[in-house]
């Protein structure tokens, strides 16, 4: 009986303080691999950590494929003073997404789309230059992209390549603009504690818009935000 009561007790508040680290559910051999790849800490559940571990430790693309992706990505978005595609982790993202979007629910994206892209791009470079993309010069690759990078090319034979190129372009840009350097490049200013007190005056002027006085007279007075709210019985704020 004592034992049964104990097991009920463990459920009560069972998970408080339970540290949810991936390290508690893996073997010591795994740990060596894990320490190399694990740099993410973003509030995962146990099940999510297990999935992440699978995604981060498996291998989808070959070295040649990854080098090809890097070469393509650098032409889609060349480096600038903020950094390069490599600095933005874009090649790594291709590898992760290929494994992450690998279930039937995600339509085997890695195989059917990302790897398929490399196959199709290599077919095009072989037809034109008799070699794979990885062997091509930047100029040769650009000549291939000129045919498949724009949405107005109606050549039937190129439609699959155009669709796949759009995915590659999307992956490269989304990877870049969700990276630390890409967000700096974009200039995004938020994701940090601050006090919103309306659109800056000069911006309002730029757009010839203004705040309706009646509207903003009822908005929060940020100098009184720390005063505890009190109301009269009709709901008028007193503080």
């Amino acid at each position, binding site marked *: 009986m004592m034992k049964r009561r104990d097991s009920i007790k463990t459920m009560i508040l069972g998970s408080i303080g339970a540290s949810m680290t991936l390290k508690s559910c893996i073997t010591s051999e795994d740990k060596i691999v894990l320490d190399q790849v694990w740099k*993410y800490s973003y509030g995962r559940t146990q099940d999510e950590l297990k999935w992440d571990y699978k995604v981060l430790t498996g291998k989808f693309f070959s070295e040649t494929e990854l080098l090809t992706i890097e070469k393509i990505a650098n032409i889609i978005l060349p480096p600038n003073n903020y950094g390069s595609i490599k600095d933005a982790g874009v090649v790594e993202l291709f590898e992760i997404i290929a494994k992450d979007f690998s279930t039937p629910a995600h339509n085997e994206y890695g195989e059917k789309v990302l790897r398929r892209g490399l196959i199709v791009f290599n077919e095009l470079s072989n037809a034109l230059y008799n070699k794979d993309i990885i062997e091509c010069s930047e100029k040769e690759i650009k000549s291939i992209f000129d045919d498949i990078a724009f949405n107005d090319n109606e050549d039937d034979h190129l439609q699959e390549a155009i669709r796949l190129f759009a995915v590659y372009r999307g992956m490269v840009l989304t990877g870049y603009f969700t990276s630390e350097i890409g967000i700096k490049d974009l200039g995004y200013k938020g994701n940090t504690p601050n006090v919103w007190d309306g659109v800056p005056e000069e911006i309002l002027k730029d757009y010839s818009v203004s705040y309706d006085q009646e509207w903003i007279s009822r908005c929060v007075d940020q100098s009184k935000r720390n005063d*505890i*709210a009190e109301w009269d019985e009709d709901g008028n704020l007193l503080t």
Partner: protein
Amino acid sequence: MEIIKSKKEYDVIVVGSGAGGGMATKILSDAGINVALVESGPYFDPANPDQQTQLKWPWESPRRGAGTNRAFGDFHMSYGDWSLDGEPYSSVEGTDFKWWRSRMLGGRTNHWGRISLRFGPRDFKSKDFDGLGENWPISYDDIKPYYDKLDKLVGVYGTKENMFNEPDGFFLPPPKPRLHELFYIKGARKSNVKVMPSRLSVLTKRINNERGICFYCGQCDRSCSVYGDFSSSSCLVIPSLKGGMVDLYVNSMVNEVITDKNGRATGVSFINKENGKDYKIKGKIVVLAASACATARILLNSKSNAHPNGLGNSSNLIGKYLHDSTGAGRGVFIPELINRKIYNEDGVGGMHVYSPWWLDNRKLDFPRGYHIEVGGGMTLPQYGIGWNPNDFNKFFGLRTGGYGDSLREDVKKYYGSTVYLSGRGEAIPLKENYCEIDPESKDKYGVPVLRFRYKWSDYEYKQAKHMHDTFEEIAYNMGGIPLGSKPTKEDNYGISVPGEIIHEVGTTRMGNDPKTSVVNKYERLHDVDNVYIVDAAPFVSQADKNPTWTIMALSWRTSEHIINELKRQNV
């Protein structure tokens, strides 16, 4: 099979820790009542660094926040979405329903939009106005005192507007509009659409010394680590645990309400998800708050000699009248907003302005209204940004696609130039729309699962059509270009799949007549005098308001009723 029983008898067992269960737990335990709170998911506290996603950057997720694991992206704070491994559900052929389940302390209140609207006088008596659906057995006056107390306890910003069906409350002051919201105000007014400050349960001003105030990161959907927004776990359950009257059971999935030979509830049985074992705990009163469909499932699975077709189901109405809010949306490109000067406009986690229902349905070809929500701005980049970097070139007669440095400039050029308009409307509850036990399927714990049958009627399609006509008019009036094409009849006017808006209600509706309703006006089963339901299952109709505020006000009212019953020893 081993079943582990506890000797202790609780005064009240509360099943589920979301809006309704959290409120019941607080009110009951504050009154010195002994409560067992049974939650199917893990403990959750957004202040716990191991669980926190607030203020994370996209690169802190290996997939840059993509939605592989969580439907709304890696940082979204819901454990569980429209699908859960090993816990299936199905729909009758030719129909579709998507069932959202958040399995965690606080449930869906950790991810919701914090839109906190009172139902108005008309919303409780809609049948009097259009002859459709059913009236509630209570009126606005019955619930008003609880809305008032709720505003003060939990906090909601807004403004007094003196509109008949959008009752005012005890509001904190709203934040000033963002730039794209000023464009919306301009466009909406030109279209004669009412527009006013939104009403969100976000603390723009301090309400007590236990909770922090909003620091404008725009991430309420990640659940606030300083409790600057409302979630049941942060603001009701965790504080209640400190009072010593609550035993919290986590990862404990209730599958049945246990009854004695007379059919009265004596407790609940649940499965501990960590060890797979079955447990029973005893209580004088059982309060269900597992969410509308999960509560219906528990009741329908609680069969006994006294209740052969499910607990409290003599009316055969459990699961019936299931309904969700309608939804439709349209993106709008604002050419004037290209090449923006960048400043921090994260604001609160949601809109600063919105449009309540502004028309008279007697002059329209559909019976119930909708409100319009506004999204947009220079938001935190997530997986997907830049995917079609220069699609809007087509509006300027320029080529789309390409490669090279110009793409970088295109992404910057169009960043923050899109506004998104969403309608959320009231559907007519129908008996033909329901959930029921699927005789063929069980979940991984061996418990029978739900099967849904839900179809919109012409009322909802016509309403969605009206939404799209309105979006287009407002889009042009704000100087914008509506994106894509307007959905037609063949596209079902772009209406959401039932369940997608995550406002499902109505499965144990409230009424005075036990033949046509499942619970009475205090949310107690007509058939069993010690089982109450405080989630959205008792809703007679889901107004064009978000349901949370009404779930909580009703739960508070029911909890006071339970306290009185216990005092009078009626239970």
